[in-house]
Protein backbone atom coordinates (compact mmCIF):
# COMPACT_ATOMS: atom_id res chain seq x y z
CA UNK A 1 0.00 0.00 0.00
CA UNK A 2 1.50 3.33 -0.99
CA UNK A 3 1.17 6.34 1.27
CA UNK A 4 -0.69 9.12 -0.48
CA UNK A 5 -0.33 12.23 1.60
CA UNK A 6 2.98 13.45 2.94
CA UNK A 7 3.18 16.33 5.41
CA UNK A 8 5.22 18.29 2.89
CA UNK A 9 2.40 17.90 0.41
CA UNK A 10 0.00 19.32 2.99
CA UNK A 11 2.28 22.29 3.54
CA UNK A 12 2.71 22.75 -0.21
CA UNK A 13 -1.03 22.83 -0.74
CA UNK A 14 -1.63 25.25 2.12
CA UNK A 15 1.12 27.55 0.87
CA UNK A 16 -0.59 27.51 -2.50
CA UNK A 17 -3.85 28.62 -0.89
CA UNK A 18 -2.11 31.16 1.33
CA UNK A 19 -0.49 32.82 -1.68
CA UNK A 20 -3.95 33.70 -2.94
CA UNK A 21 -4.74 35.73 0.14
CA UNK A 22 -4.67 39.48 -0.29
CA UNK A 23 -4.85 39.21 -4.07
CA UNK A 24 -8.41 40.30 -4.47
CA UNK A 25 -8.98 43.53 -6.32
CA UNK A 26 -9.79 46.41 -4.02
CA UNK A 27 -12.72 48.61 -4.84
CA UNK A 28 -12.63 52.38 -4.94
CA UNK A 29 -14.89 52.85 -1.96
CA UNK A 30 -12.70 50.64 0.16
CA UNK A 31 -9.59 52.56 -0.85
CA UNK A 32 -11.22 55.86 0.05
CA UNK A 33 -12.24 54.51 3.42
CA UNK A 34 -8.74 53.31 4.00
CA UNK A 35 -7.17 56.67 3.16
CA UNK A 36 -9.72 58.56 5.25
CA UNK A 37 -9.13 56.29 8.18
CA UNK A 38 -5.39 56.60 7.78
CA UNK A 39 -5.62 60.40 7.74
CA UNK A 40 -7.61 60.35 10.94
CA UNK A 41 -5.07 58.14 12.58
CA UNK A 42 -2.20 60.37 11.53
CA UNK A 43 -3.96 63.39 12.98
CA UNK A 44 -4.77 61.53 16.16
CA UNK A 45 -1.24 60.33 16.54
CA UNK A 46 0.19 63.82 16.14
CA UNK A 47 -2.05 65.25 18.82
CA UNK A 48 -1.33 62.51 21.26
CA UNK A 49 0.22 63.94 24.43
CA UNK A 50 2.42 62.56 27.14
CA UNK A 51 -0.48 62.09 29.50
CA UNK A 52 -2.17 59.75 27.08
CA UNK A 53 1.02 57.71 26.78
CA UNK A 54 1.13 57.44 30.54
CA UNK A 55 -2.45 56.25 30.66
CA UNK A 56 -1.70 53.73 27.94
CA UNK A 57 1.34 52.48 29.80
CA UNK A 58 -0.72 52.05 32.95
CA UNK A 59 -3.40 50.25 30.97
CA UNK A 60 -0.83 47.89 29.49
CA UNK A 61 0.61 47.29 32.94
CA UNK A 62 -2.83 46.56 34.33
CA UNK A 63 -3.59 44.28 31.39
CA UNK A 64 -0.31 42.46 31.94
CA UNK A 65 -1.18 41.94 35.59
CA UNK A 66 -4.81 41.04 35.03
CA UNK A 67 -4.23 39.00 31.87
CA UNK A 68 -2.96 35.86 33.57
CA UNK A 69 -5.78 36.07 36.14
CA UNK A 70 -8.28 36.52 33.35
CA UNK A 71 -6.79 33.60 31.48
CA UNK A 72 -6.92 31.42 34.54
CA UNK A 73 -10.53 32.48 35.09
CA UNK A 74 -11.51 31.38 31.61
CA UNK A 75 -9.72 28.10 32.04
CA UNK A 76 -10.94 27.34 35.53
CA UNK A 77 -13.85 25.31 34.27
CA UNK A 78 -11.77 23.29 31.87
CA UNK A 79 -8.35 22.83 33.32
CA UNK A 80 -6.98 21.38 36.46
CA UNK A 81 -5.41 23.80 38.86
CA UNK A 82 -2.61 23.16 41.29
CA UNK A 83 -1.01 24.53 44.41
CA UNK A 84 2.68 24.32 45.18
CA UNK A 85 3.72 24.23 48.78
CA UNK A 86 7.11 24.56 50.45
CA UNK A 87 9.12 25.04 47.29
CA UNK A 88 11.41 27.56 45.73
CA UNK A 89 11.68 28.45 42.05
CA UNK A 90 14.81 28.56 39.93
CA UNK A 91 14.97 29.03 36.16
CA UNK A 92 11.28 28.27 35.91
CA UNK A 93 11.69 24.99 37.77
CA UNK A 94 10.12 24.02 41.04
CA UNK A 95 13.00 23.14 43.32
CA UNK A 96 12.17 20.51 45.93
CA UNK A 97 12.80 21.20 49.58
CA UNK A 98 11.95 19.28 52.74
CA UNK A 99 8.21 18.91 52.15
CA UNK A 100 7.62 20.14 48.65
CA UNK A 101 4.44 18.99 46.99
CA UNK A 102 2.24 19.98 44.09
CA UNK A 103 -1.42 19.32 44.85
CA UNK A 104 -3.75 19.26 41.84
CA UNK A 105 -7.42 20.12 41.99
CA UNK A 106 -8.48 16.55 41.20
CA UNK A 107 -6.67 15.25 44.28
CA UNK A 108 -3.55 14.04 42.47
CA UNK A 109 -0.26 14.95 44.10
CA UNK A 110 3.40 15.17 43.14
CA UNK A 111 5.95 15.18 45.94
CA UNK A 112 9.47 16.37 45.17
CA UNK A 113 12.44 15.26 47.20
CA UNK A 114 14.99 17.74 48.41
CA UNK A 115 16.92 19.20 45.49
CA UNK A 116 14.71 17.79 42.76
CA UNK A 117 14.02 20.12 39.83
CA UNK A 118 10.75 19.85 37.93
CA UNK A 119 8.32 21.99 36.03
CA UNK A 120 4.70 21.65 34.98
CA UNK A 121 4.95 22.10 31.26
CA UNK A 122 1.37 21.36 30.31
CA UNK A 123 -1.95 21.40 32.11
CA UNK A 124 -5.20 20.03 30.73
CA UNK A 125 -8.61 19.05 32.02
CA UNK A 126 -7.47 15.47 32.36
CA UNK A 127 -3.95 15.74 33.67
CA UNK A 128 -0.63 17.42 33.30
CA UNK A 129 2.83 16.92 31.92
CA UNK A 130 5.59 17.27 34.48
CA UNK A 131 9.17 17.61 33.23
CA UNK A 132 11.55 16.17 35.78
CA UNK A 133 14.90 17.85 35.12
CA UNK A 134 16.72 16.08 37.92
CA UNK A 135 16.06 14.28 41.18
CA UNK A 136 13.16 12.23 42.48
CA UNK A 137 9.44 12.77 42.40
CA UNK A 138 6.73 10.64 43.98
CA UNK A 139 3.49 10.62 42.10
CA UNK A 140 0.02 9.77 43.33
CA UNK A 141 -2.60 10.07 40.63
CA UNK A 142 -6.31 9.82 41.28
CA UNK A 143 -7.74 7.42 38.74
CA UNK A 144 -10.33 8.94 36.44
CA UNK A 145 -11.65 8.26 32.94
CA UNK A 146 -9.58 9.90 30.23
CA UNK A 147 -6.62 10.55 32.54
CA UNK A 148 -3.62 11.98 30.70
CA UNK A 149 -0.73 12.41 33.09
CA UNK A 150 2.86 12.28 31.94
CA UNK A 151 6.21 12.52 33.63
CA UNK A 152 9.01 13.38 31.24
CA UNK A 153 12.45 12.53 32.58
CA UNK A 154 15.07 13.36 29.97
CA UNK A 155 14.27 11.18 26.98
CA UNK A 156 11.98 8.90 29.01
CA UNK A 157 8.25 9.37 29.23
CA UNK A 158 6.05 7.79 31.87
CA UNK A 159 2.39 7.76 30.93
CA UNK A 160 0.32 7.54 34.06
CA UNK A 161 -3.10 5.97 34.13
CA UNK A 162 -4.10 6.03 37.79
CA UNK A 163 -1.39 5.09 40.14
CA UNK A 164 1.30 5.79 42.71
CA UNK A 165 4.94 5.60 41.75
CA UNK A 166 8.35 7.22 42.18
CA UNK A 167 10.59 8.47 39.40
CA UNK A 168 14.28 9.11 39.98
CA UNK A 169 16.07 10.86 37.15
CA UNK A 170 19.81 11.50 37.43
CA UNK A 171 20.49 13.89 34.63
CA UNK A 172 24.27 13.64 34.93
CA UNK A 173 24.21 9.86 34.53
CA UNK A 174 21.15 9.77 32.21
CA UNK A 175 19.80 7.17 34.59
CA UNK A 176 16.14 6.61 35.30
CA UNK A 177 14.46 4.45 37.91
CA UNK A 178 10.71 4.04 38.16
CA UNK A 179 9.15 2.29 41.18
CA UNK A 180 5.51 1.42 40.65
CA UNK A 181 3.57 1.00 43.90
CA UNK A 182 0.04 0.56 42.57
CA UNK A 183 -1.93 0.93 39.35
CA UNK A 184 -0.10 0.91 36.05
CA UNK A 185 2.11 3.13 33.96
CA UNK A 186 3.40 2.98 30.41
CA UNK A 187 7.02 3.96 29.88
CA UNK A 188 8.73 4.86 26.62
CA UNK A 189 12.29 5.95 25.98
CA UNK A 190 15.77 4.85 24.97
CA UNK A 191 16.55 1.15 25.30
CA UNK A 192 12.84 0.45 25.62
CA UNK A 193 11.44 -0.61 22.30
CA UNK A 194 7.78 0.12 22.01
CA UNK A 195 5.81 0.73 25.17
CA UNK A 196 6.51 -0.87 28.53
CA UNK A 197 3.50 -1.40 30.76
CA UNK A 198 4.65 -1.90 34.35
CA UNK A 199 2.86 -3.79 37.11
CA UNK A 200 2.75 -2.88 40.80
CA UNK A 201 5.83 -3.84 42.77
CA UNK A 202 8.16 -3.46 39.82
CA UNK A 203 11.14 -1.21 39.34
CA UNK A 204 12.41 -0.11 35.94
CA UNK A 205 16.09 0.78 35.69
CA UNK A 206 17.64 2.17 32.55
CA UNK A 207 21.16 3.52 32.19
CA UNK A 208 23.29 4.23 29.11
CA UNK A 209 25.29 1.39 27.61
CA UNK A 210 23.15 -1.32 29.20
CA UNK A 211 19.77 -2.78 28.48
CA UNK A 212 16.87 -1.53 30.55
CA UNK A 213 15.56 -4.02 33.09
CA UNK A 214 12.63 -4.63 35.37
CA UNK A 215 13.34 -5.79 38.92
CA UNK A 216 11.16 -6.23 41.98
CA UNK A 217 11.14 -3.13 44.19
CA UNK A 218 11.69 -5.34 47.21
CA UNK A 219 15.06 -6.39 45.86
CA UNK A 220 16.30 -2.87 46.44
CA UNK A 221 18.20 -3.13 43.22
CA UNK A 222 19.87 0.00 42.09
CA UNK A 223 22.76 -1.37 40.11
CA UNK A 224 23.58 -1.37 36.48
CA UNK A 225 21.59 -4.21 35.04
CA UNK A 226 22.82 -6.82 32.59
CA UNK A 227 21.67 -10.19 31.33
CA UNK A 228 18.89 -9.56 28.90
CA UNK A 229 15.95 -11.67 27.99
CA UNK A 230 13.50 -11.12 25.18
CA UNK A 231 10.10 -9.53 24.91
CA UNK A 232 7.64 -8.54 22.26
CA UNK A 233 7.14 -5.11 20.81
CA UNK A 234 4.19 -4.54 23.14
CA UNK A 235 5.72 -5.37 26.46
CA UNK A 236 3.75 -6.19 29.54
CA UNK A 237 6.29 -6.56 32.26
CA UNK A 238 4.32 -9.10 34.26
CA UNK A 239 4.09 -11.39 31.24
CA UNK A 240 7.81 -11.53 30.71
CA UNK A 241 9.76 -14.61 31.63
CA UNK A 242 12.21 -14.34 34.46
CA UNK A 243 15.82 -15.04 33.62
CA UNK A 244 18.71 -16.13 35.75
CA UNK A 245 21.16 -13.30 35.46
CA UNK A 246 24.11 -12.62 37.64
CA UNK A 247 22.86 -9.46 39.23
CA UNK A 248 23.12 -10.12 42.90
CA UNK A 249 20.14 -8.45 44.53
CA UNK A 250 19.01 -6.88 41.35
CA UNK A 251 17.66 -9.83 39.45
CA UNK A 252 16.12 -8.42 36.32
CA UNK A 253 12.87 -9.74 34.99
CA UNK A 254 13.35 -8.60 31.46
CA UNK A 255 15.60 -6.81 29.01
CA UNK A 256 13.56 -4.22 27.19
CA UNK A 257 16.13 -3.10 24.66
CA UNK A 258 15.36 -2.70 21.03
CA UNK A 259 18.04 -5.25 20.22
CA UNK A 260 16.19 -7.85 22.22
CA UNK A 261 13.01 -7.01 20.39
CA UNK A 262 14.70 -7.17 17.03
CA UNK A 263 15.74 -10.73 17.68
CA UNK A 264 12.11 -11.71 17.96
CA UNK A 265 10.49 -9.43 15.44
CA UNK A 266 12.87 -7.56 13.20
CA UNK A 267 10.15 -5.78 11.27
CA UNK A 268 8.05 -4.60 14.17
CA UNK A 269 7.75 -0.84 14.50
CA UNK A 270 7.62 0.35 18.08
CA UNK A 271 4.01 1.02 18.83
CA UNK A 272 4.97 4.15 20.74
CA UNK A 273 6.16 5.52 17.43
CA UNK A 274 3.03 4.85 15.44
CA UNK A 275 1.62 8.30 16.07
CA UNK A 276 4.97 9.83 15.19
CA UNK A 277 5.18 7.77 12.01
CA UNK A 278 1.73 8.93 11.02
CA UNK A 279 2.76 12.51 11.66
CA UNK A 280 5.78 11.99 9.45
CA UNK A 281 3.63 10.60 6.69
CA UNK A 282 5.04 7.09 6.98
CA UNK A 283 1.63 5.41 6.89
CA UNK A 284 2.95 2.37 5.10
CA UNK A 285 5.22 1.49 8.01
CA UNK A 286 2.38 1.75 10.49
CA UNK A 287 0.15 -0.44 8.36
CA UNK A 288 2.95 -2.95 7.83
CA UNK A 289 3.67 -3.09 11.55
CA UNK A 290 0.01 -3.60 12.32
CA UNK A 291 -0.29 -6.35 9.75
CA UNK A 292 2.83 -7.98 11.13
CA UNK A 293 1.28 -8.12 14.55
CA UNK A 294 -2.01 -9.18 13.05
CA UNK A 295 -4.76 -6.71 12.36
CA UNK A 296 -7.28 -8.66 14.41
CA UNK A 297 -4.87 -8.72 17.31
CA UNK A 298 -4.20 -4.98 17.12
CA UNK A 299 -7.91 -4.23 16.87
CA UNK A 300 -8.76 -6.53 19.74
CA UNK A 301 -5.94 -5.72 22.14
CA UNK A 302 -4.15 -2.60 20.89
CA UNK A 303 -4.06 0.54 22.97
CA UNK A 304 -6.24 3.48 22.16
CA UNK A 305 -3.33 5.42 20.71
CA UNK A 306 -2.44 2.46 18.51
CA UNK A 307 -5.98 2.24 17.20
CA UNK A 308 -6.06 5.97 16.56
CA UNK A 309 -2.73 5.85 14.73
CA UNK A 310 -3.83 2.82 12.72
CA UNK A 311 -7.08 4.53 11.77
CA UNK A 312 -5.22 7.68 10.73
CA UNK A 313 -2.68 5.72 8.70
CA UNK A 314 -5.43 3.78 6.96
CA UNK A 315 -7.43 6.92 6.23
CA UNK A 316 -4.47 8.81 4.85
CA UNK A 317 -3.45 5.81 2.75
CA UNK A 318 -7.05 5.63 1.55
CA UNK A 319 -7.60 2.17 2.92
CA UNK A 320 -11.19 2.98 3.75
CA UNK A 321 -12.16 -0.48 4.85
CA UNK A 322 -9.40 -0.74 7.46
CA UNK A 323 -9.95 2.84 8.57
CA UNK A 324 -13.61 2.10 9.15
CA UNK A 325 -12.79 -1.03 11.14
CA UNK A 326 -10.25 0.78 13.30
CA UNK A 327 -12.54 3.71 13.98
CA UNK A 328 -15.50 1.50 14.80
CA UNK A 329 -13.34 -0.59 17.10
CA UNK A 330 -11.99 2.51 18.78
CA UNK A 331 -15.53 3.62 19.52
CA UNK A 332 -16.54 0.19 20.73
CA UNK A 333 -13.55 -0.44 22.97
CA UNK A 334 -13.07 3.05 24.37
CA UNK A 335 -16.58 4.50 24.59
CA UNK A 336 -16.63 7.97 26.04
CA UNK A 337 -13.00 8.75 25.27
CA UNK A 338 -12.46 11.99 23.38
CA UNK A 339 -10.70 10.18 20.54
CA UNK A 340 -13.57 7.72 20.25
CA UNK A 341 -16.03 10.57 20.02
CA UNK A 342 -13.85 12.17 17.37
CA UNK A 343 -13.89 8.89 15.48
CA UNK A 344 -17.54 9.54 14.66
CA UNK A 345 -16.52 12.62 12.70
CA UNK A 346 -13.90 10.74 10.71
CA UNK A 347 -16.34 7.91 10.05
CA UNK A 348 -18.60 10.54 8.52
CA UNK A 349 -15.71 11.64 6.34
CA UNK A 350 -14.94 8.21 4.96
CA UNK A 351 -18.53 7.40 4.09
CA UNK A 352 -19.76 8.38 0.66
CA UNK A 353 -20.16 12.13 0.40
CA UNK A 354 -23.78 13.07 0.99
CA UNK A 355 -24.81 9.59 2.04
CA UNK A 356 -27.18 8.80 4.87
CA UNK A 357 -24.35 7.02 6.63
CA UNK A 358 -22.17 10.13 6.57
CA UNK A 359 -25.06 12.23 7.79
CA UNK A 360 -25.67 9.81 10.62
CA UNK A 361 -22.07 9.96 11.79
CA UNK A 362 -22.00 13.75 11.73
CA UNK A 363 -25.19 13.78 13.79
CA UNK A 364 -23.65 11.29 16.18
CA UNK A 365 -20.52 13.39 16.52
CA UNK A 366 -22.51 16.55 17.18
CA UNK A 367 -24.67 14.77 19.74
CA UNK A 368 -21.66 13.36 21.56
CA UNK A 369 -19.34 16.36 21.20
CA UNK A 370 -21.43 19.49 20.70
CA UNK A 371 -18.42 21.64 21.52
CA UNK A 372 -15.83 19.33 19.98
CA UNK A 373 -12.95 20.50 17.82
CA UNK A 374 -14.67 19.39 14.62
CA UNK A 375 -18.12 20.73 15.52
CA UNK A 376 -18.05 23.62 13.00
CA UNK A 377 -17.08 21.24 10.23
CA UNK A 378 -19.53 18.53 11.31
CA UNK A 379 -22.44 20.92 11.56
CA UNK A 380 -21.54 22.54 8.25
CA UNK A 381 -21.31 19.21 6.46
CA UNK A 382 -24.53 18.05 8.05
CA UNK A 383 -26.23 21.21 6.82
CA UNK A 384 -24.90 20.71 3.29
CA UNK A 385 -25.95 17.06 3.16
CA UNK A 386 -29.44 17.83 4.38
CA UNK A 387 -29.62 20.65 1.86
CA UNK A 388 -28.66 18.33 -1.00
CA UNK A 389 -30.90 15.50 0.13
CA UNK A 390 -33.97 17.29 1.46
CA UNK A 391 -33.81 20.83 0.13
CA UNK A 392 -33.74 24.36 1.45
CA UNK A 393 -36.61 24.11 3.91
CA UNK A 394 -35.13 21.14 5.71
CA UNK A 395 -31.67 22.66 5.93
CA UNK A 396 -32.78 26.14 7.03
CA UNK A 397 -32.96 25.26 10.76
CA UNK A 398 -29.46 23.85 10.54
CA UNK A 399 -28.28 27.01 8.76
CA UNK A 400 -29.75 29.11 11.57
CA UNK A 401 -28.07 26.93 14.16
CA UNK A 402 -24.80 27.14 12.30
CA UNK A 403 -24.85 30.93 12.13
CA UNK A 404 -25.85 31.16 15.76
CA UNK A 405 -22.94 29.00 16.85
CA UNK A 406 -20.29 29.72 14.23
CA UNK A 407 -21.13 33.08 12.70
CA UNK A 408 -17.64 33.38 11.25
CA UNK A 409 -17.28 29.70 10.36
CA UNK A 410 -16.34 28.37 6.93
CA UNK A 411 -19.92 27.39 6.09
CA UNK A 412 -21.34 30.76 7.14
CA UNK A 413 -21.76 31.99 3.58
CA UNK A 414 -23.52 28.77 2.59
CA UNK A 415 -25.78 29.09 5.62
CA UNK A 416 -26.66 32.67 4.64
CA UNK A 417 -27.54 31.55 1.13
CA UNK A 418 -29.78 28.77 2.44
CA UNK A 419 -31.62 31.21 4.69
CA UNK A 420 -31.99 33.72 1.85
CA UNK A 421 -33.50 31.06 -0.39
CA UNK A 422 -35.76 29.78 2.35
CA UNK A 423 -37.26 33.23 2.80
CA UNK A 424 -37.96 33.71 -0.91
Amino acid at each position, binding site marked *: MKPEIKP*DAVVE*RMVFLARQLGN*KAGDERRSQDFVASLSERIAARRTRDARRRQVAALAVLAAACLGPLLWLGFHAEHQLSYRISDASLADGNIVGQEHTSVAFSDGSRFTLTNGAHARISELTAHGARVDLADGEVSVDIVKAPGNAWYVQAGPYQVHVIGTAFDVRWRKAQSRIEVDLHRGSVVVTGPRIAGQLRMDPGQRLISVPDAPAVITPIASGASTTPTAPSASSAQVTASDLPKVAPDLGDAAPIADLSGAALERHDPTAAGTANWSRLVA*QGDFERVLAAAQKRGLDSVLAAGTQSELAALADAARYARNTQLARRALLTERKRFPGAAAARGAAFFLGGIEADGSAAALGWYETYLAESPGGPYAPQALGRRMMIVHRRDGVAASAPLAREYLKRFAQ*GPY*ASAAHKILERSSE
Partner: protein
Amino acid sequence: MLARSLGPGRDVEDSLQEVFLCLFNKVAELRNPAALRAFIVSIAIRTLRHEIRRRKLRSWLRLDGNVAVEDLRAVNPDPDAREALIRFYALLDRINTRDRSVFVLHVIEGMDIEAIAEALEVSVPTIRRCFARARERISLLAGRDPMLVEYVSKFDMGALP
Protein backbone atom coordinates in the same frame (compact mmCIF):
# COMPACT_ATOMS: atom_id res chain seq x y z
CA MET B 1 2.11 40.64 2.05
CA LEU B 2 0.51 41.38 5.40
CA ALA B 3 -2.64 39.50 4.45
CA ARG B 4 -0.70 36.45 3.36
CA SER B 5 1.59 36.55 6.36
CA LEU B 6 -1.02 37.13 9.01
CA GLY B 7 -3.74 35.04 7.49
CA PRO B 8 -7.46 35.61 7.79
CA GLY B 9 -8.51 38.23 10.28
CA ARG B 10 -10.02 41.61 10.73
CA ASP B 11 -6.91 43.58 11.49
CA VAL B 12 -4.82 43.35 8.33
CA GLU B 13 -5.88 46.84 7.34
CA ASP B 14 -4.99 48.08 10.81
CA SER B 15 -1.53 46.66 10.34
CA LEU B 16 -1.30 48.23 6.91
CA GLN B 17 -2.14 51.58 8.42
CA GLU B 18 0.54 51.04 11.02
CA VAL B 19 3.01 50.54 8.19
CA PHE B 20 2.00 53.85 6.63
CA LEU B 21 2.06 55.67 9.94
CA CYS B 22 5.53 54.40 10.62
CA LEU B 23 6.58 55.27 7.09
CA PHE B 24 5.39 58.85 7.45
CA ASN B 25 7.21 59.18 10.73
CA LYS B 26 10.47 57.72 9.50
CA VAL B 27 10.61 58.63 5.85
CA ALA B 28 12.91 61.55 6.69
CA GLU B 29 15.53 58.99 7.68
CA LEU B 30 15.52 57.55 4.18
CA ARG B 31 18.59 58.98 2.44
CA ASN B 32 18.43 56.96 -0.78
CA PRO B 33 15.04 57.29 -2.49
CA ALA B 34 15.80 54.22 -4.59
CA ALA B 35 15.71 52.16 -1.42
CA LEU B 36 12.11 53.12 -0.70
CA ARG B 37 10.72 49.69 -1.46
CA ALA B 38 13.19 47.94 0.82
CA PHE B 39 12.49 50.58 3.44
CA ILE B 40 8.76 49.90 3.29
CA VAL B 41 9.30 46.15 3.31
CA SER B 42 11.45 46.39 6.42
CA ILE B 43 8.75 48.43 8.15
CA ALA B 44 6.13 45.94 7.03
CA ILE B 45 8.15 43.06 8.42
CA ARG B 46 8.61 44.79 11.76
CA THR B 47 4.88 45.53 11.85
CA LEU B 48 4.18 41.95 10.91
CA ARG B 49 6.27 40.56 13.77
CA HIS B 50 4.68 42.99 16.18
CA GLU B 51 1.21 41.96 15.01
CA ILE B 52 2.02 38.26 15.34
CA ARG B 53 3.21 38.81 18.90
CA ARG B 54 0.12 40.89 19.63
CA ARG B 55 -2.15 38.20 18.25
CA LYS B 56 -0.42 35.59 20.35
CA LEU B 57 -0.90 37.70 23.44
CA ARG B 58 -4.56 38.24 22.63
CA SER B 59 -4.95 34.57 21.96
CA TRP B 60 -3.42 33.69 25.31
CA LEU B 61 -5.71 36.16 27.00
CA ARG B 62 -8.61 34.81 24.99
CA LEU B 63 -9.47 38.27 23.69
CA ASP B 64 -9.87 37.16 20.10
CA GLY B 65 -13.14 35.73 18.90
CA ASN B 66 -13.65 33.50 15.90
CA VAL B 67 -11.48 34.29 12.94
CA ALA B 68 -13.26 36.31 10.32
CA VAL B 69 -13.44 34.63 6.97
CA GLU B 70 -14.71 37.55 4.93
CA ASP B 71 -11.43 37.77 3.05
CA LEU B 72 -11.35 34.06 2.46
CA ARG B 73 -14.74 33.98 0.82
CA ALA B 74 -13.46 36.23 -1.93
CA VAL B 75 -10.39 34.09 -2.40
CA ASN B 76 -11.82 30.64 -2.24
CA PRO B 77 -15.49 29.71 -2.34
CA ASP B 78 -14.80 26.18 -1.13
CA PRO B 79 -15.73 25.95 2.59
CA ASP B 80 -13.22 23.15 3.08
CA ALA B 81 -10.45 25.30 1.63
CA ARG B 82 -11.42 28.13 3.95
CA GLU B 83 -11.45 25.79 6.92
CA ALA B 84 -8.07 24.41 5.87
CA LEU B 85 -6.62 27.91 5.59
CA ILE B 86 -7.92 28.85 9.01
CA ARG B 87 -6.39 25.72 10.47
CA PHE B 88 -3.12 26.32 8.63
CA TYR B 89 -2.78 29.81 10.04
CA ALA B 90 -3.76 28.54 13.48
CA LEU B 91 -0.91 26.11 13.05
CA LEU B 92 1.44 28.95 12.11
CA ASP B 93 0.37 30.70 15.30
CA ARG B 94 2.07 27.89 17.19
CA ILE B 95 5.47 28.67 15.66
CA ASN B 96 7.68 31.27 17.30
CA THR B 97 7.44 34.70 15.78
CA ARG B 98 10.79 34.87 14.01
CA ASP B 99 10.63 31.36 12.59
CA ARG B 100 7.13 32.01 11.32
CA SER B 101 8.14 35.31 9.75
CA VAL B 102 11.06 33.69 7.98
CA PHE B 103 8.94 30.79 6.71
CA VAL B 104 6.17 33.04 5.45
CA LEU B 105 8.49 35.54 3.81
CA HIS B 106 10.55 32.87 2.11
CA VAL B 107 7.93 30.31 1.12
CA ILE B 108 4.78 32.34 0.68
CA GLU B 109 6.26 35.71 -0.31
CA GLY B 110 9.21 34.26 -2.19
CA MET B 111 11.81 36.55 -0.61
CA ASP B 112 15.48 35.54 -0.73
CA ILE B 113 17.08 34.37 2.47
CA GLU B 114 19.60 37.20 2.14
CA ALA B 115 16.87 39.81 1.81
CA ILE B 116 15.05 38.41 4.83
CA ALA B 117 18.28 38.47 6.83
CA GLU B 118 18.79 42.10 5.94
CA ALA B 119 15.22 43.04 6.77
CA LEU B 120 15.29 41.23 10.10
CA GLU B 121 18.82 42.46 10.83
CA VAL B 122 20.21 39.03 11.60
CA SER B 123 22.78 36.84 9.87
CA VAL B 124 22.03 34.62 6.89
CA PRO B 125 22.95 31.40 8.77
CA THR B 126 20.52 32.38 11.51
CA ILE B 127 17.78 32.84 8.96
CA ARG B 128 18.63 29.47 7.43
CA ARG B 129 18.35 27.83 10.82
CA CYS B 130 15.05 29.59 11.49
CA PHE B 131 13.72 28.43 8.15
CA ALA B 132 14.81 24.82 8.63
CA ARG B 133 13.30 24.76 12.11
CA ALA B 134 10.05 26.34 10.95
CA ARG B 135 9.70 24.03 7.98
CA GLU B 136 10.26 20.94 10.08
CA ARG B 137 7.80 22.05 12.73
CA ILE B 138 5.14 23.18 10.29
CA SER B 139 5.47 19.97 8.36
CA LEU B 140 5.09 17.96 11.54
CA LEU B 141 2.06 19.91 12.73
CA ALA B 142 0.42 19.91 9.29
CA GLY B 143 0.90 16.17 8.96
CA ARG B 144 -0.72 15.67 12.33
CA ASP B 145 -3.77 17.75 11.52
CA PRO B 146 -6.40 15.33 10.30
CA MET B 147 -8.48 18.07 8.74
CA LEU B 148 -5.61 19.40 6.67
CA VAL B 149 -4.55 15.95 5.56
CA GLU B 150 -8.11 15.06 4.69
CA TYR B 151 -8.50 18.26 2.72
CA VAL B 152 -5.27 17.80 0.80
CA SER B 153 -6.06 14.16 0.11
CA LYS B 154 -8.79 15.39 -2.21
CA PHE B 155 -6.18 16.65 -4.63
CA ASP B 156 -3.72 14.79 -6.75
CA MET B 157 -0.24 15.57 -5.57
CA GLY B 158 1.77 17.64 -7.98
CA ALA B 159 -1.32 18.75 -9.84
CA LEU B 160 -2.31 21.88 -8.04
CA PRO B 161 -5.08 23.76 -9.75
